[in-house]
Every structure is written in C-alpha cells, then in structure tokens.
C-alpha cells in the first residue's frame, strides 16, 4: 500500500516550470530515493510534501489524507518528519533539551500552555529523550551546547529528534551533503539500522549514488521537473535513459 | 478645495524630510543589512550644522561707540560680526542672512566624516550580529549623540531663520485659477525642490555610475558581487557616508521650518522607520513614495474639517496606515521578496 501518493503535481515560479507533472507512490515501510541532476526539481518536490510550498496543480495524499494547504507543523503532526540538508537543530540549547522538544511535541501536540510545570518533573519525557540519546550514542554529549557539536553529531541529533516523534514517513534531504566519507558511511549505517529496527518509510533525496544504491529499494529519477523513470536500483543502474539524463557525463568521457 | 491643496503642499515638505531620511535608512539597510536607529540623530546633526554656521558667522567683535551712549552714559558697546568687518557691512549681512544655505558647505564634509567614522568605528562590527543587537547599539548611539548635542546647545529649540529673500509666501491662488489666495511659504518650496534634487541625485548616482551599479548589484546579491572580486565593503562604507550626508542635508535645510532641538532626530526617526516599512524594506522608490504619501496624509488629516469628525486623527493616521499596510501587504508597498523574510 502506498503511504504517500503524489498525483500530477506541478509548480511554476514565474517563467520557470520547476515541476511538470509528477506522479510518485512511496510504498509503506520501503526506502524510496529520488535522484536527479541539479535543478531537476527535487527540493521543490520535497517542499511541496512538507507544506513549505503549495503546488499549483495536483494532489499530495499522505495515508489517505491530503496534505495540501496544511501548515508544516500540521503535516508534521500527521506523521511526516523532515531532515534538512544542513542539520536544523536548536543550536542555542543543549543536546538533551533538543531531544526533549520533539518528545513534548509528540505527547502534547502543536501547542500546550504548560507554563508552571517543571521540566524536571516530566519523568516520561526525560526518560524517552535519554533513551533516544542512548540509542543514537549521543548520551555522553547530553549537556553539551548543540551548536558546538561536529557536523556528523548534529546530523545524528537531527535524525534522533525526528525519530523521537515516531514518524511514519521520514524525509531526508541530501543527508550526507558536504560530509566526509567516514561520516557518510556512518550515516548510511545509521539509516540502515533505523530501517531494520522500525516500521518506518523513508524517502530520500540524494546526490551521492553510493548512498542511494546502499539504501534504496526503489528509485525515481527526476529530470527537468518530471519523473523520467521509476524502478529498482539494479534496473536503474543499467537504464539507458537514466544514463543519458543523469550520468551523461560518464558517456561523454 | 483650496484648503486641501494647501494641506497637500504642507504635506510635501514633511514628506520630503521623511523621504530623505527613509531613503538613507533604506540605503544602509539594503547595502549593509543594518537597521540604523541612529539615523534620526544624523538628521538632527545636520540641523545643528545650520545652527553652528549661524553662530560662527555671527561671532562678533565689540567696539565702543564714539557717538552713542547707553543709559548709564557710558559709550555704547556695538557688536560687529567679523564677517561684516571683513567683507563690509552689506556683504557681511548678506552672508549672515544666507547662513542656512551656506551650512550645506559645512554639513557635507561633516556628515561624510560622521558617517565614515560611525561605519568604520561601530557599525562594521555589527554586520554579523543579530538585528536586535544592531537596533540596540544604534539606539544607544542615538542617545549619546542627542545628549552630546543637548550638552553643547542646550535643551531649547534654537530658531534658525531662512534667508530674508525666502521669508514671504508664494500665492498659489491665481496660479491655480482660484479666487482665494493660497499662501505657501517660499522656504517650503525651496525645501521641496531641494529634496527633489537630492533624491534625483541619489537615484542618478545609483543608476548611471559604475559605483552605483555595483552598489545596486550588491544590494540584490551581496555574495555574488563579492565573488567577482569587487571590494564591496569599501563601497558600502562610502554608501553609509552618503546616506549620512543625505540625512544631514535634509536636516540642514529643515532648520528654518522647525527650530532645531536635540530630540528632533528621535521624533523623525520613529516615523521614518514606519515610512521605510510601509514603503517596503530595501526598496528605494518605496521609501520615497511612502515618505511623501505619509507626509501628505498626515497633513490632510490635520485639517479642521477632518479633525472635527475624527478628533486627533492626524496624530495616529500614519500608524494606522502603517499597521493596515503591513497586515495586508506584509512586504510593504514596493518591497521585494526575500528581504528580511525571517
């Protein structure tokens, strides 16, 4: 069953047709990668899924409900979490505080006026946050200022924060962009582990073919705002159209 | 009808002042990305340039009169300004009479220096700091500048007359074919024309010089221009000086309209900010348009006919308009996308 259904989505910026006519189904509990050259419309598509942009045409259904017109926080509460290209965390707060915020959001919803209760008394939240930190091997950095962590740790924390909400769909926007090889491999391992241990659907936008082929079960190739082809990684590797649009440079060489 | 025209004209000079200050604020914001709460103080310093020039020109020697006696029978002390003793009484008196326009000559270098010193000495260090810090430090600077002026010039407004030639009023009545007379002070016409020239000069400078082209490009996309190997920072410093000079000149010529006092900068600043926001943060034409629009609106709202229906509306009209515009057009009248979105 498809948990995310994108139908005929189009988006235009002035004279630029960023997304033509995108159709895409992401199966539940699968890992689906969206690849494509620069300017193919990957980020635009992602932004349409999370409520940052509203597409001009088409529909986006998550678990049978439309996400269009909803605010990002509402879409998140439906069960979609997003990991950004550059880790978006609360840099002014400690790692533990970062971790508690999604736990509160999961339990209390988008707003709750708990102004006179003490955080220290929120045993279940503290417990859950600590558990997540342990699982992600961040527990020794518990009281660290999160802005001063390494990029790899920031990425780990961001993923941990998303997972703390038990999302049904995890969207990753080039999660290894700008990372050193070792950090990239760590991230791949982490994502593999998440996939194995949880009932979670992962949709990933990625540039790095190594990452895509190690994780994805299905791949959609986007070019100039329209899906070129959708298939399994093995078939994609040898697909002539893909080689032309995406790996064109290797042929030329 | 003629009352409306008169108020419209009255709004022009206040609008000119708003437009000039807002223009400088926008230039600084657009180029340096800094919110300058001390910009009103620059306007005030300009006005005090007029006061200073007037005081310097009226520095006098005292001589004892040979013929006249005071009431105690001593020879009367006669004060003769130096300029009169140097250039003869007629030329000297004329120079004193024209002290406000002459103050422009002093104001330009003074304001440029003040601008450069401010940018290099203080503002430069705040490019990377949050906007709140920029507001706070320039707010502190504004307090300091106004207190310094208060210390040297006192707390009372200092009347600074315009040249005698402009003291009268121009009658717009016949010109517009009205039966009634429509007297409008000459100096206000001068002020409006002066402002128009400065605004035109700033736009021409930005439009037609290479320097201006780089600055405009820098306002649009600072990083890319920096990548081209152009030293954008130095140009931005110069732009800060120019913005300071624009505010200063607006102040110099405003002195005869409103006697300069130490808090005039703050008074104008609040409204100029409203003007900038209404015009659209970062939009130079927007700043000018909104400046005149709000100046005229304020003037029209102060008509008795309006005030009888809505008492005191002139005091709040600008704020009401600003709030309505910001809510309906969040980017202001002519704001560009992406400026101060976050």
């Amino acid at each position: 069953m498809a948990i995310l259904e994108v139908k005929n989505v189009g988006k235009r910026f002035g004279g630029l047709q960023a997304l033509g006519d995108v159709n895409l189904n992401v199966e539940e509990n699968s890992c689906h990668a969206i690849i494509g050259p620069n300017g193919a419309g990957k980020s635009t598509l992602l932004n349409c899924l999370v409520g940052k942009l509203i597409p001009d045409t088409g529909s986006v259904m998550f678990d049978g409900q439309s996400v269009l017109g909803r605010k990002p926080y509402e879409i998140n509460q439906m069960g979609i979490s997003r990991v950004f290209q550059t880790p978006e965390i609360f840099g002014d707060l400690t790692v533990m505080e970062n971790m508690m915020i999604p736990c509160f959001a999961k339990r209390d919803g988008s707003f709750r006026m708990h102004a006179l209760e003490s955080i220290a008394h929120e045993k279940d939240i503290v417990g859950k946050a600590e558990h997540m930190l342990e699982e992600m091997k961040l527990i020794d950095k518990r009281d660290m200022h999160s802005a001063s962590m390494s990029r790899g740790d920031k990425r780990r924390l961001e993923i941990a924060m998303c997972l703390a909400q038990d999302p049904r769909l995890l969207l990753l926007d080039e999660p290894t962009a700008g990372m050193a090889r070792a950090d990239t491999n760590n991230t791949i391992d982490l994502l593999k582990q998440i996939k194995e241990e949880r009932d979670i659907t992962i949709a990933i936008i990625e540039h790095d073919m190594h990452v895509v082929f190690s994780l994805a079960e299905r791949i959609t190739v986007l070019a100039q705002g329209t899906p070129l082809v959708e298939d399994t990684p093995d078939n994609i590797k040898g697909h002539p159209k893909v080689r032309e649009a995406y790996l064109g440079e290797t042929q030329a060489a | 009808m003629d009352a409306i025209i008169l108020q419209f004209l009255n709004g022009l000079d206040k609008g000119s002042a708003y437009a000039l200050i807002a223009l400088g604020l926008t230039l600084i914001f657009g180029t340096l990305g800094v919110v300058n709460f001390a910009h009103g103080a620059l306007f005030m310093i300009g006005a005090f340039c007029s006061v200073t020039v007037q005081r310097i020109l009226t520095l006098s020697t005292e001589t004892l009169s040979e013929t006249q006696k005071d009431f105690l029978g001593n020879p009367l002390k006669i004060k003769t300004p130096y300029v009169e003793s140097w250039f003869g009484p007629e030329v000297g008196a004329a120079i004193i009479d024209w002290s406000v326009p002459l103050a422009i000559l002093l104001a330009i270098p003074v304001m440029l220096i003040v601008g450069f010193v401010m940018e290099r000495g203080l503002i430069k260090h705040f490019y990377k700091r949050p906007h709140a810090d920029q507001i706070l430090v320039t707010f502190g600077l504004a307090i300091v500048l106004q207190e310094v002026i208060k210390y040297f010039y006192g707390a009372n407004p200092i009347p600074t007359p315009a040249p005698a030639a402009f003291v009268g009023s121009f009658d717009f009545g016949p010109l517009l074919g009205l039966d009634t007379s429509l007297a409008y002070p000459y100096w206000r016409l001068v002020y409006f024309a002066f402002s128009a020239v400065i605004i035109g000069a700033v736009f021409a400078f930005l439009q037609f010089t290479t320097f201006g082209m780089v600055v405009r490009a820098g306002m649009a996309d600072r990083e890319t221009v920096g990548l081209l190997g152009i030293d954008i920072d130095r140009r931005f410093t110069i732009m800060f000086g120019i913005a300071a000079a624009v505010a200063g000149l607006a102040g110099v010529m405003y002195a005869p309209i409103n006697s300069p006092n130490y808090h005039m900068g703050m008074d104008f600043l609040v409204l100029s900010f409203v003007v900038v926001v209404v015009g659209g943060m970062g939009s130079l034409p927007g700043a000018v348009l909104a400046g005149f629009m709000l100046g005229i609106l304020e003037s029209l709202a102060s008509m008795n006919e309006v005030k009888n229906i809505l008492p005191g509306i002139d005091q709040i009209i600008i704020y009401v308009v600003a709030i309505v515009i910001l809510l309906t057009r969040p980017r202001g009248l002519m704001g560009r996308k992406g400026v101060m979105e976050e």
Partner: protein
Amino acid sequence: MFGLKKHDSRLFIVVAVLALAAPFLLNPFPDGSAMAQFNAGYPDLMQRFVIFGIFAIGFNLLFGLTGYLSFGHAAFLGLGSYGAVWMFKLLSMNIIPAIVLSVIVAGVFALIIGYISLRRSGIYFSILTLAFAQMMFAIAYSDLIGRFVGTPITNGETGLQLALDDPRVLGISATPDGSIPLTNLFGLEMRSVFNLEVGGWLFTFSFGYYVCAVVMLLSFYVAIRIFRSPFGLMLRAVKSNQQRMNYTGLNTRPYTLAVFVISGMYAGLAGGLMASMDPLAGAERMQWTASGEVVLMTILGGAGTLIGPVLGAGFIKYFENIFAKINDNVLHSWFAFMPDGLEDLMVTIVHPFVGKGWHLTLGIMFMLVVIFLPGGLVEGGQRIGRLFRRRDDKATSVESDAAEQRKPAAE
C-alpha cells in the same frame, strides 16, 4: 522549595532577602554624613526599584526567551496605570481591584496588539510594536477616546488624577476632613511608614514598599517557574530555530502570543502598582523612550537570565537618582585633594556625564554593554567569577597531573 530546583531556590531566597532587607541594605551611610546622598533606602526610590524590576522581568520573558524585541512595552505599563486610577476613581481606594483591573486591561490590549504584531518577526515586529505604542501614546496624550465619549478618559496632557467628587462606590469620595482618601490595602495605607533610628542611621520602612516587594517576589517566582517549564523551553526553541520548531510539529504563534500577553500583563501589573503608590497616570509613561528604558534595563542586566532584569532595573534607577544629584559642588569636593588646576580640569571632564548628563552616561554604558558584554551585568559577573575559578581549576589540575604522574612511579 516551592517546586524550584536547589539552584533556583537559592537565587530566589537571595533576592527575597535583599528585597525585604532593602531599607537596611540601601542605607549604609549614617544620616547627615557626607555619603548619605548615596543612600537609596527611601520608600519612593525603593518602590521604583521593584516596580521597574517587575516591568523588566516581564519584558525579559518575551525578549530574553523568544528574542522578539518589543519596542512598545511601555504602552502596557501606561494602560495599567490608567486602569488602576480609574478603579480608584470609581470603586474604592483598595489597591487589589485596581491592580487586578490593570493586569486585565494590559492583558487584553497585549492580546490584540500581539495577535497583529506577531504575524511578523524580526525588525518588522519591533517596528509594529513601536507603531502601536506610539499610536496609543498619541491617543492617550490628546485623549482621543475621551473626546469621542465626551468625558475625559486619559485626561490628555494633564494626566488622570483623583478628584474629590469621584464616586468610589465601595469607598468614600472624600475623607471627613475634605481631602482625597489614600490608596490602601484593606485599610493599611500605602503611605504609612515606620521609622527606626539606630545610632546615626535612620531606616524607613514603608508599607507601600513592602507591598511592591512582595508582588515583585511573586512575579519573580512565576518567572522562574516559566523559565524552567516546558513552555519556557519552547520559547527558547522559538528563539533558536523557528524552522525546526515548525518541522517538529509545533505551532510557534500561540507560544509567542501567550508569552507576549504574559509579558504585557507584567507591564500592566507594574503600571498598576505605580498608580497604587502614587494615584495618577500620564501619557508620558507610554512614550517610546519609556519602552526604550525597559529594553535598556533588561540588556544591561542580562537578557535571558533570571536575575539580569532585576539587576538592570535597580542599577539604572539607582544611578539615575544618584547621578542626577551630583553637581559641580560635589565634584569639586571629590577632586579637592588635587592641585587646583587639575581639580578644575577633572570637574570639567566629568561634568557632562553627571547631573543632567546622566542620559549621556547611560547611552555610553549601554553601547559598551551591547558591544563588549552582550550578556549584560550577569555575564560580566560570570566572567569575573570564572577568572577566579580558573585559577582554582589550574591548581586542582596541577594536583591531579601530579597524582597521575605518581601512579606509574608507584607501580
């Protein structure tokens, strides 16, 4: 204690002791001595300390936690004052209903203004709040509402005052001897004082001050609770990264609006107390310079810290009072030990910064703090503290190094 962590309860107790013992602590110099002019232990000034403390604590909840810089907070203080005075005019001279009304009025206005202003952030928010405050100042200053209604509401330039013919339905319009009754708390007058003379010292205990101090302590306590609550955590998250907030399923708007209203109510409370101590209200309390003042206090003390705003308020109000008193005679007596020429020179140099020049000093101080000490006095204190602690650390680390080295030797 009271549901606070150890660290916070210690801070609270220190503040409580300082506030309650203020009449002693602020009068360190014997009456009549040369230094007596630096005493601050008289009711009027002490009341200002704590009232502006409340104002700054509330402002800090908004600015310190969320980073939203309101430049129009004085409007709420002014509204609180007007609300309280109207209560004194209509209901009774008991301060409880007056303060309750002032908090409600400020809260309602904060809700409206906040709802509109918080649609924008950053510089736009600052300017919107500034515009609202200036508009309300203009309305109060020319009593626009009063002109519509036909009876003075804010009483324009003169300000709102009590009169002998006010109804005061639950109290009396005038005392038997024909004067306006005094503000009180169930009969205990705010003005009543108890003087204690010990040796050369004269200590004045004012009931009004203690009312203010207790209210301030309550406000401070609530602020600590808010800081340590999940709500407070969310507010700090708003300041840190709104994007992440939104993508974590949190709606930032109600959080910021809630704290804006709370913050406005604190300002209203301060305004109500101000009117309770001296029952009049004027538009100048709402002017943007007054809003600037609370910003100054908070930054100077340390925005985002618990104690900072209280320190800042006390600091500014104390020095405002003391600096204003320093005139050339005082300066001459200070520098009397110097040779005459030097003495005159020093007096000339210092003169612009004292007396009426207090604002100049304040402006310079403010700039220096923003430039070099963005964390304010609290950060300054911490830095000094760390300086000392580092020496200790070094000592201990040297010891542990030595211990480390000894180990292999022992093996």
